[in-house]
């Protein structure tokens, strides 16, 4: 069953079309990978879905409801949460308070319930022993987990993960993948934008490929990586199969 649908979404910045008539659907319980070279429009598309940008054209339908042009906090409260590529914790707050903000506002819970939810989420992502630290003082992998915790605390059904594994080493990526699988098992749907092929391959049921703002391929991971157009977008026309490019490095 379709949970989120993007219908011909276009976002122009002046003369530049950052996202151009992109359509795709996310099914309930699905993990959709989204890949594409730098500047392909992945983050712009996320920002359109989450309400930070208003699409120039096209519709975004979530749970049967047209959410195009809604404010970010409204979309969040309806059940979609994003983790940012550039982690922006509320630095002067503790890890606990960061997640509490999301539970109180995004999850619209009362204080006592929000505090309970926060404690549970922190334990779920494995940050319970750092909950009293200032969020500006924790390590990069911990900050990535904190972003996830904030998204989870809103009780969103759909998580949009924008390069949540950037800057992690191979071991940390494995741990992050385990966590994502655990989140999926809890019934969430997700869209995973990631440069690290191994990470996308490890979690996605289907993959959408963007290049220069347009969708160039969509399908099962094994099909997509052998698609000539995708290979060309990533590696140039003489490229080899992407399936071999599976070290843990992102390209930014």
């Amino acid at each position, binding site marked *: 069953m379709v949970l989120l649908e993007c219908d011909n979404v276009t976002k122009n910045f002046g003369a530049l079309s950052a996202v151009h008539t992109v359509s795709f659907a996310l099914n309930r319980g699905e993990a959709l990978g989204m890949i594409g070279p730098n500047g392909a429009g992945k983050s712009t598309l996320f920002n359109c879905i989450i309400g930070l940008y208003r699409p120039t054209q096209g519709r975004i339908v979530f749970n049967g409801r047209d959410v195009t042009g809604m404010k*970010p*906090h409204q979309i*969040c409260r309806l059940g979609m949460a994003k983790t940012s590529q550039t982690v*922006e*914790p509320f630095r002067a*707050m503790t890890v606990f308070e960061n997640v509490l903000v999301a539970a109180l506002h995004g999850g619209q819970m009362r*204080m006592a319930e929000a505090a309970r939810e926060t404690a549970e989420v922190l334990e779920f992502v494995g940050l319970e022993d750092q909950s009293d630290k200032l969020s500006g003082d924790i390590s990069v992998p911990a900050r990535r987990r904190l972003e996830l915790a904030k998204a989870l605390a809103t009780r969103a059904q759909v998580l949009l993960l924008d390069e949540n594994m950037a800057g992690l080493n191979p071991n940390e990526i494995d741990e992050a993948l385990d966590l994502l699988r655990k989140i999926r098992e809890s019934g969430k749907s997700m869209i995973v934008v990631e440069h690290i092929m191994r990470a996308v391959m490890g979690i996605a049921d289907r993959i959408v490929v963007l290049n220069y703002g347009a969708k160039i391929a969509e399908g099962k991971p094994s099909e997509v990586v052998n698609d000539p157009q995708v290979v060309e977008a990533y590696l140039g026309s003489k490229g080899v199969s992407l399936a071999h490019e599976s070290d843990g490095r992102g390209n930014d």
Partner: protein
Amino acid sequence: MPMLTPSEFTLRVAGGVLLWIGMAGCWNIMSGYTGYIDFGPVVYFGLGSYATAIAMTKYGLPFVPSALLSGVVAALVALPIGIPTLHLKGAYFAIATFAFAETMKQVCLEFDRTFGVSFFEGSHGITLPISGHDNTFFFYCLLPVTLAVLLVHYGIERSKFGYGLKAIHEAESAAEIAGVNTTGIKLRAYVTSAFFLGIFGGIEAYWITYITPDSAFNVHNTVQMVIMTLLGGMGTLLGPIVGAALLTIIYEVLGTAFVEYYLVMVGVIIIAIILVMPRGIVGTLKERMGLRFI
């Protein structure tokens, strides 16, 4: 000049301290917690002064309802002003709020001449009914309002509203995607702050009995609110109390002892404190001692 008995003098100073704690607190609710530097809060103080003056002199309303009405008037003006200006960031917000305060001053100055009416009384100002009340009366008028402002602070420290304000201060777009209705929360803080400033304006007008556009909308009042809060510590519960009390008392003590150059001395003291404690007295202590909710 009536002779001031020592206790009358003390009460006058105490009233001044209360007034400034409350006004600095109003600025702190909006700017201290969200980081949006409002450089025109005096506009709501001035509107409150005029609302009380006009209600009492033109409509014969008693003082207490006039002062409360002043709060409502200020809040009602803050609502349509807040909606467009709170979308502005940083210096642009500061400039817009400053410009609005200056605009209202000009409106009060020129309105009557322009429309041939007798309402704001232009540069002549308005003389309020002489109250006959002593400083004790005004002390007890200010006390509940200042306590209410501090109660709002206390509420902010551990509430959903307060966490929203602080999240906006830290990272506004991250707050938005975490579900914080940033515009709504900023507007609530702005209108709350304007409401209390309006009441303070009303009380002060009745206390000093004579207002002009220049006195009621004096940018000096804005500067005082900002400096007191910065000195005490922005976005802290005790900051406005410490900053306002300290500065008001310094003004009184040095102003009496060194009439000629006390302002220079106050300036030096402010600079010295800010150099040693860049996040204000309370803010810096909080940081160094690892305290959170003060």
